[in-house]
């Protein structure tokens, strides 16, 4: 530890910390443009100058290591003067277009110019102007505004793992761009907007839409992948205008995937905003009582075991428990939430969770990925793996799955199918030795790898491999299942799987039920539903399944309700209502609760508090919102399934097109444009080159 005095305040910081960190520890705010705590240090903007006693010149605090006994002043005349000088230089070539700049109101340069800027310029020469660059369909560039902090270059190289941005030319001719004018091949490109301290990189879909002070900001949680990124929903009136990540070091740090950020225009299109009832073969608009009556007529005439329910991938825990209770009241145990047919064992939590935890990835020292491309299935989680991979200490990564995948970090391709898993199990494969030798090895099993005929065998084999290679220890759990969407784990936690004597999805689709209640279930082909089955679709988008429905109940999307979601780690998080559902659409649990009353099977909760008490009763884990207890792998008994039953067919990745993977993103024009530009396999192709 080093003892440093900052403006008369004595602080102790670790050796190797920077002067800037010491100043922050003392509660002093240091202006900066190029410095970003999650990126390498560049030290090129010079805004963070401070005075160091006995040093002849001001020093760049972000790039200066502390030493014991340093005396630093952050607000002396010398410091203020130096920063004013830096600001004057920065503003020489920066345009005065704040009134039409989308960064206005949340611009670091604008803010700092208030503190250190002059009210006039002494620069009489011509300002330089720079041609705008093309970096993809999501980022708008106005490169004349660029102050060359190089944050975007470092982000794409270090965090996103796609070294495609750079600074070409030199001096006055220096320009930031790709040089070859192509879209950046990353699912994390939206973060460039956040990371750019000026208005050089802004959101293309959000261009000229709004000013930050016009927006109502609602903290929430993302459900479009299973990471559970913490987000802030910015809305104005009835419209969600943008989504930004919130910092949560344990989950998403401060990043967000492009689908989660940019699919929001899908919240306005193809919405179900009123109930519909099929009459004479055609869906016709209806009122709520008519829709309820149509369902009640049908359901009350059926015995419980002829009714089934399927929970969708984006459903909130409140709606899921309400539907489960309704089904119980109707006498049905035919429940399923595994639309992809994943052979998940819901009997124990650590059979289907990402047990290592996302932050725990950084402690791992070997990794095996089976049948998953985390880059596409959970880009932010993949960034965490990359962070670990480039952290210095060796981190061997093995990968079993389709050959042409670029994970953004080096990985040994061990095979394409279960054969490779079998070889590892035998211990014959050298990578098995690598895992065994590691102190904290981990395994990521893709949900796609168990969503196949021999899924249970693959699950059991992966578990056995975890046991054999010492991934399960009292203080370390290296077995991880990577889910795909925000509602999947919550449904498993609530036991939305076939109860005693209940039928699973495949049986329900085989004609074992006469009525099917789909709660936002768009994850399977509705053509598989037998023509005679009565289908109730409750959801927010007129996607695949709604067209097949006999009754449509308009529900709320994740930005339109107070909902509880569980991410792939098993972390319970809450989203909050940012805007109201459109038209006559209602929060999903209220719909189910209202329906239950209509058929005389009133569910025993009247408000959110009562419902959430029921959630905790169903699974105590719902009482631990926001926190996550790290699990150890003490119990080695594995999930049901026989590893020997694994077939031969290679693993197929579940998400072929990152940009259009769910009902919301399929309705989004922005995402359609991305899919067009990048193509469904553009990232994979890049790897093949």
């Amino acid at each position, binding site marked *: 530890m080093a003892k440093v005095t900052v403006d008369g305040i004595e602080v102790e910081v670790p050796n190797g910390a920077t002067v800037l960190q010491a100043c922050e520890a003392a509660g002093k705010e240091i202006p900066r443009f190029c410095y970003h705590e999650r990126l390498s240090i560049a030290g090129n903007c010079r805004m963070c100058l401070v005075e160091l006693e006995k040093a002849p010149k001001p020093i760049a605090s972000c790039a200066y290591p502390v030493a014991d006994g340093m005396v630093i002043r952050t607000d002396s005349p010398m410091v203020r003067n130096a920063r004013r000088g830096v600001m004057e230089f920065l503003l020489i070539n920066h345009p005065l277009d704040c009134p039409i700049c989308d960064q206005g109101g949340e611009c670091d340069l604008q803010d700092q110019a208030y503190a250190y800027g002059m009210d006039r310029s002494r620069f009489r020469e011509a300002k330089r102007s720079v*041609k*705008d*660059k*093309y970096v993809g*369909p999501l980022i*708008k*560039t*106005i490169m004349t505004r660029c102050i060359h902090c190089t944050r975007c270059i470092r982000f794409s*190289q270090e965090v996103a793992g796609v*070294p*495609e*941005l*750079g*600074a*070409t*030319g*030199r001096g006055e001719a220096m*320009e930031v*761009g*790709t*040089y*070859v*004018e192509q879209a950046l091949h990353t699912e994390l490109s939206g973060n460039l907007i956040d990371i750019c301290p000026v208005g050089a990189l802004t959101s*293309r879909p959000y*261009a000229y839409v709004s000013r930050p002070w016009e927006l109502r900001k609602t903290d929430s949680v993302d459900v479009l992948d299973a990471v559970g990124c913490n987000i802030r929903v910015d809305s104005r009136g009835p419209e969600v205008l943008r989504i930004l990540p919130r910092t949560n070091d344990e989950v998403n740090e401060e990043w967000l995937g492009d689908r989660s950020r940019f699919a929001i225009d899908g919240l306005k299109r193809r919405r179900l905003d009123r109930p519909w009832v099929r009459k004479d073969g055609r869906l016709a608009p209806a009122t709520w009582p008519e829709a309820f009556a149509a369902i009640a007529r049908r359901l009350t005439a059926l015995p419980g075991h002829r009714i089934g329910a399927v929970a969708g991938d984006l459903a909130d825990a409140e709606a899921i428990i309400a539907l489960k209770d309704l089904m119980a009241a109707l006498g049905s145990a035919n429940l399923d939430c595994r639309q992809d047919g994943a052979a998940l064992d819901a009997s124990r939590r650590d059979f289907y969770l990402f047990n290592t935890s996302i932050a725990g990835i950084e402690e791992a020292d070997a990794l095996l990925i089976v049948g998953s491309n985390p880059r596409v299935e959970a880009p932010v989680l993949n960034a965490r793996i990359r962070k670990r991979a480039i952290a210095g200490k060796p981190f061997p990564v093995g990968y079993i799955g389709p050959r042409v995948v670029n994970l953004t970090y080096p990985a040994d391709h061990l095979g394409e199918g279960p054969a490779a898993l079998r070889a590892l199990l035998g211990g014959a494969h050298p990578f098995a030795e690598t895992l065994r030798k590691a102190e904290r090895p981990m395994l990521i099993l893709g949900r796609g790898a168990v969503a196949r005929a021999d899924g249970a065998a693959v699950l059991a084999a992966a578990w056995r491999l975890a046991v054999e290679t010492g991934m399960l220890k009292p203080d370390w759990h290296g077995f991880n299942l990577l889910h795909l969407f925000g509602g999947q784990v919550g449904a498993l936690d609530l036991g939305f799987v076939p109860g005693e004597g209940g039928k699973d999805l495949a049986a329900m689709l085989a004609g074992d039920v006469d009525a099917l209640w789909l709660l936002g279930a768009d994850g399977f082909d509705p053509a598989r539903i037998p023509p005679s089955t009565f289908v109730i679709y409750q959801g927010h988008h007129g996607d695949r399944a709604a067209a097949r429905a006999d009754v449509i109940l308009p529900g709320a999307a994740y930005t339109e309700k107070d909902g509880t979601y569980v991410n792939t780690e098993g972390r319970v998080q809450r989203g909050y209502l940012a805007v109201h559902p459109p038209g006559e659409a209602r929060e999903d649990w209220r719909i189910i609760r209202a329906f239950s009353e209509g058929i005389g099977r009133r569910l025993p909760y009247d408000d959110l508090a009562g419902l959430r008490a029921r959630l905790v009763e169903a699974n105590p884990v719902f009482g631990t919102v926001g926190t996550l207890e790290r699990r150890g792998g003490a119990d080695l008994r594995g999930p049901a399934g026989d590893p020997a039953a694994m077939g031969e067919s290679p693993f197929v990745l579940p998400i072929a097109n990152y940009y259009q993977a769910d009902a919301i993103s399929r309705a989004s024009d922005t995402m359609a*444009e991305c899919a*067009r*530009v990048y193509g469904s396999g553009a990232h994979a192709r890049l790897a093949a080159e």
Partner: protein
Amino acid sequence: MSGGENGGATHAVDEAERREQPAHFAFDEESERRIPDILARYPEAKRASAVIPLLWLVQDQMRRQTGSAWVPKVAMDVVAARLGMAPIRVYEVATFYFMFNTRPIGRYHLQVCGTTPCMLRGSEEVARACRDATGIKAYGETSADGMFTLTEVECLGACVNAPVLQVDLDYYEDLDYESTVRLIESLRRGERPKPGSVTGRQASAPAGERTTLLDVPGE
């Protein structure tokens, strides 16, 4: 999507530049012969250090093959692949150093030093002579016959023999208007006058009589 509502998402490499870029580049035998020597200078883990020598090799090969010493984009990609670097890292280096031409140039690259000592000794006259003799209007242009490209460079480090004109890799020193025109004329005829001082003085020895060490004993 090239523009969209952004309108200004223009391509830095515009159409004309795109057309002059060759579709293909591969090191020829001569270059391949030199590459192992270059790579051997750097540790295996720091192979990227060889980027400047390899780009230099590219430029030299282009001079041999096309008569124009420049580094096309495809060649940068070839260098990147050879050294295991991201292509953008090579683009950065190639565009940073003025000695790499990222666009085609004439057969002879006339580089006029415009830094203070040369300027005081008449580099503006040298530049004027270059313009007059080649028909070039301004720095950065190539003559209509494709023979010459004129650029202004910073100090070439030959101030004692100012003003200096660098033709490709050769220095011509002690120039004035007439001698510069003569030099260009002979280049045009395909001759390569001997590099160095055009007035015939030896290295940087005094231009006229010796002015110091006049009383050397024994002389």
